[in-house]
């Protein structure tokens, strides 16, 4: 079974066919994507039913965006990204709670920690291909889960990591009440904005072109002179860094790190969000995170069996809308 290149498209690539207006819209969406995203995020807490849900959209949006760098843009289906999310959260929590590191230092350490773990897991798994890669990342991430479970003096084990509540954040003489949901949202939104900017930067950079080339046609990319393995590993680590940032955001938000962040179900959720929103599109992961969390919210109010609905919707997307919500929107409406 050949890998079909048409499944994952780059909806933002401009075309000469189609209505001129639509092309302008597509171009505007691309050129202003970071600012547009930030504008949308600014409004988010006021349109969603709760601020906590809005913060979750930030956290999981960043997480899915980091994941999308690898899955959507580099074409590698990892099933172990919970490890980097969790690493970011745990390192941040441990740094604050056990070493008294100030919050900004802890965030930095969290991101670095996640990146180092990504380097280790990436180095091991990048040598494998296709489905093997998915299974190996899954299994290595489960190993991390079990190590965190055993190392309870550091991680709190099954009880989860706690005791690092950040009540206020001091920046340049200002003191922000971090327990206030609105302030917390906008502080964390700054992180999300940085992540959006960073990912947009990567995608616009020569490196961004290189990973897309590898996704499109690995053989040809190698023939063109790309060291494919090295490029994939860098992409893996960058993706891990962003997912770790999402982890640190989650830790600051909840003041708690549940062991579940490392479980493969979390990895599965990241995949679902990314695919629902639209892999290999810039807005897709945030759209997916929003759609998934809203769906979970709405359906779990109707029935405790919401997973059957979410699972069915996911199946339908895989079968009929592999471009996800945003990708389909771009393909059908914008073009």
């Amino acid at each position, binding site marked *: 079974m050949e890998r079909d290149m048409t499944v*994952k498209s780059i909806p933002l690539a401009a075309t000469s066919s189609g209505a001129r207006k639509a092309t302008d819209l597509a171009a505007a969406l691309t050129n202003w994507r970071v600012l547009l995203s930030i504008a949308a995020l600014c409004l988010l807490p006021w349109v969603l039913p709760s601020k906590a849900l809005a913060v979750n959209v930030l956290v999981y949006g960043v997480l899915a965006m980091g994941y999308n760098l690898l899955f959507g843009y580099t074409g590698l289906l990892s099933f172990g990204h919970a490890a980097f999310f969790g690493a970011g959260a745990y390192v941040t929590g441990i740094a604050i709670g056990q070493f008294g590191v100030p919050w900004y230092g802890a965030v930095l350490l969290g991101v670095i920690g996640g990146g180092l773990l990504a380097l280790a897991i990436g180095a*091991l798994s990048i040598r494998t291909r296709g*489905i093997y890669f998915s299974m190996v990342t899954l*299994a290595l991430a489960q190993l991390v889960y079990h190590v965190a479970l055993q190392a309870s003096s550091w991680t709190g084990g099954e009880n989860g990591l706690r005791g690092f509540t950040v009540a206020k954040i001091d920046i340049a003489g200002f003191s922000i009440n971090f327990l206030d949901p609105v302030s917390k949202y906008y502080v964390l939104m700054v992180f999300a904005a940085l992540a959006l900017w960073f990912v947009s930067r990567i995608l616009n950079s020569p490196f961004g072109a290189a990973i897309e080339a590898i996704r499109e046609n690995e053989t040809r990319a190698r023939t063109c002179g790309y060291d494919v393995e090295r490029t994939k590993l860098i992409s893996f680590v960058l993706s891990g860094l962003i997912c770790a940032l999402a982890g640190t955001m989650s830790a600051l938000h909840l003041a708690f790190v549940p062991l579940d962040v490392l479980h*493969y179900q979390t990895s599965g959720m990241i995949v679902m969000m990314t*695919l629902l929103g639209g892999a290999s599109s810039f807005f897709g992961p945030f759209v997916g995170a929003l759609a998934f969390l809203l769906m979970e919210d709405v359906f779990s109010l109707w029935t405790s069996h919401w*997973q059957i609905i979410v699972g069915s919707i996911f*199946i339908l997307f*895989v079968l009929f809308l592999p471009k996800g919500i945003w990708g389909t929107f771009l393909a059908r409406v914008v073009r």
Partner: protein
Amino acid sequence: MDAELILIQLFSGVALGAILVITALGLSIIFGMLGVVNFAHGALFMIGAYAGLWVASLTGSFWWGLLVAPIMIGVFGMAIEWLLVRPLYGRSVDDPLLLTFGLSYVLVEAVRIVFGNDGIPFPTPSQLTGVANLGVGYFPIYRLFVIVVVAVVLLLLWLALEKTKFGLIVRAGSRDPTIMRVLGVNISKVWLLVFGVGVGLAALGGVLAGPMRTVNPEMGSLVLIEAFVVTVIGGLGSLLGSVVAGLLVGVAISMTALFAPEMGTIVMFALMALVLLVRPRGLFGKAA
């Protein structure tokens, strides 16, 4: 630590390995033939246990459950292949994996709706209760029975693959589906049947596990991971690999239990990481 304990521990490892083998085998068969990683394998294992229980409750006999449930769920697996997996052939290799991942959510929740969240008792069949003295220690008769069943299934599978016309088609088809087509074989039908057999094996694993463990909607989630680890160690798609790796993991866990039983799960993953470092394609995996 005496020799007797080490011997019985070794035996426990082999017995545990037999259970791991049966859980990994279906996954491996489906991958070997269709190139599909069935993420719903664990859920189907669980459904197998429920189906076994259901048939047993209708007929009043465990034996009917053991016989009928795998066939029933196997047919259900064929429906899954036909309805859901088949449209994805020719698309990205990731798609069947993603689809079956979604399917596992649906199946687990469906069982919760029908049978509830609690477990359900699955008593050991009365003919197989009790323990047997193996000379070096005691072992439940039911587990000995499971080892026998696994051995018989392996033997039957081997015979079916090596000695029958269908087995010949499967062996050849997993290596070269195109040549089978030009020799008149409708390879889609073969894939359908193989998917059914793989799912049936998952269900058989579930029925066998029922009397050893509690039957509940979550019983498949760890099984899926175990099956993954075993197939990765053995080499994806290699049946012999699954058998060897399953026994290896079982023995590794039981030997660990002599020193640090709490590390049982970690040992399984560590073993896998080690194998990957030395042989990225698994012990019996073929080069790409």
